[in-house]
């Protein structure tokens, strides 16, 4: 290793942003562990953005681990596979982690099965045509594992008139608490690099950047040792929301993604590290997306861990596996504390988009008195896309949605930095979400 490869500088970054406490030390040294199988799995048919998957199995049917149980329900949709050897117990309406009642497949685990993969074959990706590759990705059930769960094949299927010059692999993991991507980069570095090479074979980007915040030195060192050719590991400053596409692009290329546009407008394609590890495993071993790494952590979680969890595992079982949480817990979150969602019940399954389960007490999530805006300007200094949250917040209080739209509230990607810094504890981003909802509804009515 050369001397240059040893340094974790220069540290690139974007303007503005915030520095919340990281809390990564709770779990960043815990190797990824496998969770024991549980008696029953619940697989919602909507674990991705787009049309729900269509079941191809019947109640009572026996399924093998990794066997397809639902077909894509359209182009923007992916297949779904069984995480275990078992029997289809029911196909019906169950509670989704998003709180809605949605169709799901229930599978009873075969207690006597070895749960070995049977009949899974590796595929040589380099023998495929581009359309075959895209088809394979859709069949593998792959979605973006960063949290949004957008079908991967749609993102990777770049239109003929667009050219991808830069492939950016998002290993920032800028949300506090989460360490799943960090552990993946340390333990699955080879798979990650392999996944990148496979993807870039079809995309043909000139340059691949793996973007990692410098609070993950082990991951940086590991990937620097493995990276070759046009793959470069870039160090980004520890700052939230560094992992947002816009911020990462600004930090690495120094260019702004046009408003309302995609990174591809600048020739950039962004993908999460977890997605590429899963992609490599699919082509290497033929294993579709039936499990993912979840960071189970939080200040009141008894045994913070990074766990490889079969998709469909009840959260309650996963939390129990990690020792449960203490009685002063007041919030259970899915995802990170800045953009994650609060969870009221734990009898819902881990889905493809579940990146973390956090247990927090009132010590972290304080109930604060709201004061008037004192125009201190901290929110302006925090907003990564240079909005004026102070002004937008006043407009939101008056319900002036149109004025908010004129002030670009629709560009807000809801990172929550404004609410984090506001000394008056004004629910800024929360009110912007409401405003965006109203504006979208009004647009629908007008059409």
């Amino acid at each position: 290793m050369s001397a240059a490869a040893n340094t974790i500088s220069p540290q690139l970054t974007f303007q503005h942003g915030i520095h919340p406490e990281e809390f990564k030390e709770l779990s960043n040294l815990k190797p990824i562990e496998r969770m024991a199988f549980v008696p029953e799995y619940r697989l919602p048919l909507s674990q991705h953005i787009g049309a729900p998957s269509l079941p191809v199995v019947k109640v009572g049917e026996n399924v093998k681990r990794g066997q397809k149980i639902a077909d894509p329900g359209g182009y923007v949709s992916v297949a779904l596979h069984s995480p275990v050897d078992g029997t289809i117990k029911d196909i019906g309406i169950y509670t989704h982690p998003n709180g809605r009642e949605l169709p799901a497949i229930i599978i009873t685990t075969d207690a006597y099965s070895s749960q070995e993969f049977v009949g899974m074959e590796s595929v040589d990706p380099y023998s495929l045509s581009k359309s075959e590759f895209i088809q394979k990705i859709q069949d593998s059930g792959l979605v973006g594992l960063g949290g949004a769960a957008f079908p991967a094949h749609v993102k990777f299927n770049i239109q003929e008139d667009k050219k991808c010059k830069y492939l950016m692999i998002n290993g920032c993991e800028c949300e506090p608490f989460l360490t799943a991507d960090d552990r993946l980069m340390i333990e699955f570095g080879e798979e990650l690099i392999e996944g990148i090479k496979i993807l870039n074979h079809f995309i043909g980007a000139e340059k691949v950047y793996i973007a990692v915040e410098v609070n993950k030195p082990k991951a940086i060192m590991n990937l620097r040792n493995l990276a070759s050719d046009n793959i470069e590991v870039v160090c980004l400053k520890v700052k939230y929301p560094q992992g947002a596409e816009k911020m990462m692009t600004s930090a690495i290329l120094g260019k702004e993604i046009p408003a309302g546009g995609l990174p591809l407008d600048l020739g950039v394609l962004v993908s999460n590290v977890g997605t590429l590890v899963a992609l490599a495993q699919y082509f290497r071993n033929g294993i579709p997306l039936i499990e993912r790494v979840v960071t189970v952590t939080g200040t009141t979680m008894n045994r913070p861990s990074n766990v490889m969890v079969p998709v469909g595992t009840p959260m309650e079982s996963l939390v129990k596996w990690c020792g449960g949480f203490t009685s002063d817990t007041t919030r259970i979150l899915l995802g990170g504390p800045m953009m994650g969602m609060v969870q009221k019940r734990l009898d819902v399954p881990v889905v493809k988009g579940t990146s973390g389960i956090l247990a927090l007490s009132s010590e972290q999530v304080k109930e604060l008195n709201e004061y008037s805006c004192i125009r201190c300007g901290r929110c302006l200094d925090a907003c990564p896309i240079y909005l004026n949250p102070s002004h937008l917040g006043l407009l939101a209080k008056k319900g002036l949605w149109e004025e908010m739209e004129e002030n670009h509230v629709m560009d807000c990607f809801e990172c929550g930095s404004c609410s984090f810094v506001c000394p008056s504890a004004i629910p800024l981003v929360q009110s912007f979400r409401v405003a965006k909802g109203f504006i979208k509804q009004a647009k629908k009515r007008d059409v």
Partner: protein
Amino acid sequence: MSDQKLTISTSPFLKDAATTPGIMWKVVFSLLPVVIASSYYFGVGALVTTAVAIISCVLTEWFFSPRSAYSISDGSGVITGILLAMTLPPGFPLWMTFIGGIVAIGMGKTIWGGLGQNIFNPALLGRAFLQAAFPTAITTWNLPDGAFLDVQASQLAMPFMQSQADVVSSATPLAVMKFDKVETNTWDLLTGNIGGSLGETCGILLILAMVYLISVKIIKWQIPVSILLTVGILSLVFYLLDANNYPSPQFMILSGGLLIGAVYMATDLVTSPITPSGLWIYGIGIGILVVLIRLWGGLPEGVMYAILLMNAATPLINRYTAVRTYGYKK
């Protein structure tokens, strides 16, 4: 585990430690040395004036606020009280101070809707009222009669009675400059051994307070720096042109209320611009107005009116200096 009481809310779930009352009380804390210095120079009467101003402001706030509001405990009324007192001359009748506090909070703040809603700095608005209502009293600069514990007789004047000035009156450095063209030496200006309003005389303390408030990110450095630079540069130009008629830049910066105005009044978060370039426009505007009023106006001092005028321009400045959103062309 599952029958625990979990709360529902939306992200973000983490919060920076800074709170609005925290910011306000830090400002109060930074004012303590200034208050102590004022009592050192002007006797215990300075403390009495400060106490009366604070009580007046907080009582007014309490009287006008809805009872559910926490505006009393947020510390902003206390700041207004201290700042108002610091802009008053020693020996200023206490009943006038009390009225000043009522006007500062009543007309400067609650009438607009309370904390965060006002256009003008409340303390300066209160002082502007006092200047209009009691022009003689507010320009009478009584020197303390020596003993620290003696409260000046003029302070204790009965309401609506003329104060019986039985003490030696002095002129402020600005008045001496304006009418006699004599400049006070820089050391006296820095240490505060001069006539003037209670809190404005000790330049060193105000500069230290500025450094503190900037370092804890409560005030934005652009405002005091742009004001002081503008005043310094403009007055240097005139000083170099005609040193006999125009004061030196260091005198312009250290005399009168410029420092306390630049550090505490102009930086009032509520009444100053919020945009990065707006801060400079605002500060430069104040600097220009101060120099104009001091050098060519009828009054020896112009900081108060300069800041109030730029307060009025702040909404406009904010609108015209709006920041370009990410991904948009200007």
